[in-house]
């Protein structure tokens, strides 16, 4: 595992995680969580856990984003706080 690549990925993961809870728009928050899941998927792949990476890509980035978007459509799009 190349440490420079690792460092870039981990920095991006932290940025995505902070952005997902600070952004006011809930729809953007869901999409940023999807990006977070894909970066986590890359990290798992770098560690050699390909099965976990596959699950993360399908469930975390694919289906759960769809579920979040479906749920956000039934509530207000902007956070109150």
């Amino acid at each position, binding site marked *: 595992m190349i440490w420079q690549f690792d460092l870039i990925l981990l920095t991006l993961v932290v940025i995505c995680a902070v952005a997902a809870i600070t952004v006011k728009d809930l729809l953007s928050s869901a999409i940023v969580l999807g990006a977070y899941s894909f970066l986590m998927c890359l990290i798992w792949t770098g560690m050699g856990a390909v*099965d976990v990476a596959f699950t993360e890509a399908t469930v975390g980035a694919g289906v759960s984003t769809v*579920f979040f978007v479906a749920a956000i459509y039934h509530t207000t799009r902007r956070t109150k706080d």
Partner: protein
Amino acid sequence: MIRRHEDIIIESLARFLTPFIQAFALYVLFLGHYSPGGGFQGGVLMGASFILLVIAYDIIEGKRRITEKFNIVLNATGVMVFSGTGLLCLILGGEFLDYSQLAAILPVGPEEARGLGILAVEIGVEITVAAIMVSIFLDLASAGEHEEALK
């Protein structure tokens, strides 16, 4: 949420992509023995193909393909396949989920029988996960109405 827009590009692209996603889901399931993948990932992909169809068209069109009753039956079938495999091993004289006992009814040795038992179990997981993903999505997207849309 899901109102039909009659957009020909989106609809034909979804119709075109759906069989490929489903073929990839089956590939992931059956090559889980040799490459990354397995029942869970294949099931999510299989459910996602149906979700794509529902998003591109609407819920009425989706329920015309898989009715709600059939989906509920599929939900339980997967768990039943899984635990039924375990129960079959129990009946054949082994322990619960000890697939080597399946060699008594299959024309293979105990090691190959364990591989086939793994395949049977993964098929059960795939069926349940695919059906559950579709059912949760339909419930969430339409707030339980399962009709055309609220907004």
